[in-house]
């Protein structure tokens, strides 16, 4: 009994077919393909055409695995063996459909996930490329803008020192404000591109929180008085004074948020509250919150206001005329860098509250030798120069506008003699043939660039040339560039547009 069953099941998925050399079926069982003798194997399935090309060279056996056979509305996945026999050719077909179906499912998952992974990577690469393009575009574009803006700022300054009627004076004041706005905008755009390109690095230092808050109180007190708005900075008493973090960036975040609050608050109050969330080991977690009673922001706009260029894209919303929209996206980007996140709660007509939680390190008070950074007071005292002699300055600058402006404004001070060259290659020649007290050099000079010149000078064998003070002027304003320029041997680097006073005070440092 048993071997009858065995025969029935064991042979069910294996079929034996005997054919002659023309492909005619001589004998077959009916295991799963119901075939007729004397019919042609070629009519069973196109696979069997292969017999034509193998029969002459066929020695013992040849196996084809995983062959799909479609026959009389049925699909089979089979292994097919050809064996040469005395009487003709034996074909052995084994039906492995269920086995191969499992394998197919595995291959399906594997291939799909590999392909998806690839497509995601391609998409990311594209996004990154576009982002890089955008950033380098912004960088170059702002570079181009800096030259003319430097001229405008300097000429406005010269103009304001001339005899003006009251009306003209008003116009010049207006011009100066616009210049300042434009410069701010340019700086903002650069900040954003630096943040999003990852070029902006945090610099942690030990600093005094109370001094930072005093500075904010001081900065916004007059503005609040002018606008008839109450302004207060409230600091939790439990917060220690000395902390470690990037003071400059924190200051930038807070001023951007406060500027924003002032811009949209006509009456009422603006508050900066700082609370201690948590203190653990040597870490403090602080909640900063800026609360205003201004126009407020509708729920729909509450995410859009943090997008770069949200306002520049042209969609002005009446209830959220948030300037250029750059300030808040800088805040978002900077806080991101500091592992924090800006949040907003607001009701239209009632006001807004912007807040974030920030972790700062608490330095161990006794071991710290790091100098405490105190905010650099904006120098308003005039740069001092000797009056008993005039200094000889070599100015190397190729932009004719900047050249004229610098030349004229330096000459007007009466402290200097000035020589001009507009080509990097001529600088060395001048230095060798004449004597100068200081070299003021544009970094982006034709032929030989400013930093190349600086390197040449510092390698020069004669001491009087080798040690001349060099101040670089650049339209670049990236930290990396600055470092590279200073490394080339420059004593100081100024980025365009700079103020007249800034230039003079820098020069004063090196002219004794």
């Amino acid at each position, binding site marked *: 009994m048993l071997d009858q069953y065995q025969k029935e099941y064991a042979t069910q998925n294996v079929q034996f077919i005997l054919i002659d050399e023309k492909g005619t079926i001589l004998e077959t069982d009916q295991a799963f393909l119901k075939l007729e003798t004397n019919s042609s194997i*070629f009519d069973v*399935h*196109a*696979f069997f*055409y*292969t017999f*034509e*090309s*193998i029969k002459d060279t066929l020695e013992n056996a*040849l*196996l*084809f*695995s*995983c*062959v*799909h056979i479609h026959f009389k509305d049925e699909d089979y*996945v089979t292994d097919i063996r050809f064996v040469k026999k005395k009487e003709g050719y034996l074909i052995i077909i084994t039906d492995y459909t269920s086995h*191969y179906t499992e*394998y*197919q499912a595995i*291959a*399906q998952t594997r*291939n*799909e996930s*590999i*392909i998806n992974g*690839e*497509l995601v990577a*391609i998409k990311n690469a594209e996004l990154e490329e576009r982002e890089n393009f955008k950033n380098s575009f912004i960088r170059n574009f702002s570079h181009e803008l800096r030259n003319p803006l430097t001229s405008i700022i300097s000429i406005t300054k010269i103009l304001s020192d001339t005899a003006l009627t009251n009306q003209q004076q008003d116009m010049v004041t207006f011009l100066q404000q616009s210049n300042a706005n434009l410069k701010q905008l340019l700086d903002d755009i650069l900040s954003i591109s630096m943040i999003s390109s990852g070029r902006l690095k945090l610099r942690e230092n030990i600093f005094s929180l109370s001094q930072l808050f005093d500075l904010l109180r001081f900065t916004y007190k007059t503005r609040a008085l002018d606008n008839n708005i109450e302004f207060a900075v409230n600091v939790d008493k439990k917060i220690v004074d000395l902390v470690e973090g990037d003071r400059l960036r924190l200051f930038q975040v807070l001023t951007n948020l406060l500027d924003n609050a002032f811009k949209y608050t006509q009456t009422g109050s603006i508050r900066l509250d700082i609370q201690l969330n948590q203190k653990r080991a040597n870490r403090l977690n602080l909640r900063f919150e800026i609360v205003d009673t201004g126009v407020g922001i509708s729920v729909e706009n509450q995410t859009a206001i943090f997008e770069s260029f949200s306002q520049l894209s042209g969609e002005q919303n009446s209830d959220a005329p948030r300037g250029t929209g750059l300030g808040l996206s800088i805040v978002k980007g900077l806080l991101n860098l500091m592992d924090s996140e800006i949040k907003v709660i607001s009701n239209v007509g009632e006001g807004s509250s912007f807040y974030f939680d920030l972790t700062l390190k608490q330095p161990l008070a006794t071991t710290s030798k790091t100098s405490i950074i105190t905010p650099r007071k904006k120098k308003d005292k005039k740069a001092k120069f000797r009056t008993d002699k005039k200094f000889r300055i070599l100015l190397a600058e190729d932009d004719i506008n900047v050249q004229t402006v610098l030349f004229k404004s330096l000459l007007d001070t009466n402290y200097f003699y000035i020589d001009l060259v507009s080509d990097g290659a001529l600088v060395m020649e001048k230095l060798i043939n004449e004597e100068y007290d200081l070299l003021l050099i544009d970094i982006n000079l034709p032929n030989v660039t400013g930093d190349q010149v600086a390197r040449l000078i510092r390698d020069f064998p004669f001491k009087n040339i080798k040690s001349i003070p060099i101040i670089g002027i650049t339209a670049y304003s990236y930290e990396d560039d600055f470092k590279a320029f200073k490394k080339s041997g420059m004593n100081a680097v100024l980025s365009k547009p700079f103020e007249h006073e800034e230039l003079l005070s820098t020069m004063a440092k090196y002219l004794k």
Partner: protein
Amino acid sequence: MQVSKKIVVLGHFGVGKTSLIRRFVEDSFSDNYKVSIGVHITKKVVEVSPEEEVSLILWDLEGTDDLTTIRDAYLLGTHGVVFVFDVTRPSTFQALNADLDIVRSKISKTPLLVVGNKVDLVLKEDLETLFTKNNIETNFLTSAKTGNAVNDLFLHLAKLLH
């Protein structure tokens, strides 16, 4: 019996081998991807000149990024080879020349056509730069989706082999 020619269609997985054959044989297309395993064989009779027909036996092979793993039995008696890559996925053509060398080492002296598929998804200009950059030469640029150049490809091959 008609003259029959065996054509093997191979390449990396998911490049559209099955879709090209389906477009050619049934003039249809599906967006669904069903991974082929082993080999599917179909026959299509084409007219190479008036009154002259060839039946193409099309072998649609399981795709693989390692062409050395192709089962040798599948390649026996091959008359023509179509190597397909996917113009949207660099991994399928980055090592094209090396891949072709492997194929040629397995089936020498057989006409081989190189086909870039899915051209409906990319811009023509982008393709040109892509190909020059990767040092790639193709015989046909096809789209199984739109049918672009699919018939041309197989007819060209049929005439070539005839």
